[in-house]
């Protein structure tokens, strides 16, 4: 927030994850203590008496339903933990389980011969170092849920074998489903991208239409002392469409997961700037003679100004497109001007 720096605040930092990251990690959205906002350095606070603080800065307590929605159960957290690991990590985990359980069977067979692993002939598997390979083999056969039955568990080894079978099956299922879903995710990403670009393209076309309409209206207005009422009506409807486009641009730019390319963004911002310039000129022309303005137009103008300032404000877009500052500054300036007219 370089604007804060410009205003003379020397000690500003930014929390880049923002509200989304905060919610993703299920952090509380309620004030930690009391109802008062946390103010820095109360001793150095030179704001004077406390009651002079504006009421708008009182913290708001998030609704209970919202908090419940963000609190997840242990089962979904377990699934999330599995889902966020890569295929390789899951496979290693599976191998670790197989090896770990194999070593456990081996030690059990060594410590209690005849009560851990029994071969098909009814004799316990060899203890000592010669029992390592049969134990690992049994572990792998169990974890893959093949279960040939040439070696069977006995005693406490049965419990471990069942647990290993369940864990191995779940992990293996996760690995397989990840393999399958990876391709699908790629496709979905591509579809999203296409839809996004399509929307950007539509915004550009609509901006062009608004511009053409404004130019046509400007021709109506030029060279006359009193602009015809139809000119005002056309300005009004053009303003409405323009507000809609600003909304669309605002919406597109505030979704940081897929940001438009700089060239596309520049074209859109250039379009916005030129439409804004013409709108300002036209508004001044229409306004020159009549003093009263239709309420719909007033509302459109104030929304327009607010949205344009947000689009080109210090928040998201400026940070990913520092090269486009000149356009943004232009739009910001005109957004300020439109309310003065």
């Amino acid at each position: 927030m370089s604007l804060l720096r410009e205003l003379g605040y020397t000690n500003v930092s930014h929390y880049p994850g923002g509200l989304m990251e905060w919610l993703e990690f299920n952090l509380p959205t309620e004030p930690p203590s009391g109802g008062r906002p946390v103010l820095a350095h109360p001793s150095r606070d030179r704001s004077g008496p406390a009651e002079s603080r504006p009421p708008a800065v009182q913290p708001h307590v998030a609704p209970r339903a919202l908090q419940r929605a963000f609190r997840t159960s242990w089962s979904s957290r377990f699934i999330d933990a599995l889902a966020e690991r890569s295929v390789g990590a899951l496979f290693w985990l599976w191998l670790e389980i197989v090896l770990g359980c194999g070593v456990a069977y081996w030690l059990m067979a060594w410590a209690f011969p005849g009560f851990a692993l029994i071969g098909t002939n009814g004799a316990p598997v060899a203890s000592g170092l010669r029992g390592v390979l049969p134990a690992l083999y049994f572990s792998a056969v169990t974890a893959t849920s093949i279960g040939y039955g040439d070696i069977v568990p006995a005693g406490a080894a049965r419990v471990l074998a069942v647990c290993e079978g369940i864990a191995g099956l779940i992990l293996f299922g996760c690995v397989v489903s990840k393999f399958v879903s990876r391709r699908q995710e790629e496709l979905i990403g591509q579809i999203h991208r296409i839809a996004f670009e399509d929307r950007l393209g539509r915004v550009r076309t609509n901006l062009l239409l608004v511009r053409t309409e404004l130019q046509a209206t400007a021709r109506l207005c030029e060279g006359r002392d009193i602009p015809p009422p139809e000119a005002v009506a056309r300005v009004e409807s053009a303003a409405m469409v323009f507000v809609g486009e600003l909304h669309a641009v605002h919406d597109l730019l505030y979704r940081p997961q897929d940001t438009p390319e700089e060239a596309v963004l520049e074209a859109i911002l250039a379009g916005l700037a030129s439409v804004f310039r013409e709108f300002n000129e036209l508004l001044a022309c229409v306004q020159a003679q009549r003093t009263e303005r239709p309420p719909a137009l007033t509302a459109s103008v104030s929304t327009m100004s607010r949205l344009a300032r947000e689009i080109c404000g210090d928040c998201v877009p400026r940070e990913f497109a520092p090269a486009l500052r000149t356009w943004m500054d232009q739009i910001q300036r005109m957004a300020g001007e439109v309310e003065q007219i």
Partner: protein
Amino acid sequence: MIPELSREDLVRGLRAGRITLVDVLSPESFAAMHIPGAISLPVVDLARRAAEVLSDRAAAVVTYCGGPT
């Protein structure tokens, strides 16, 4: 450049009351949900209202927007 702050540092700073957290999103967004202890100061109002909301210019101020930037 504005230095960036990790989530852990933010939580620690908020607990200790060392920082002023500023939500620069719109008032509607702030009303729906915000980080506890944050005060609302939308980007559009920064220039106009900063002086009254953030009276101490040397105090530690942390800002946040909607999401990853």
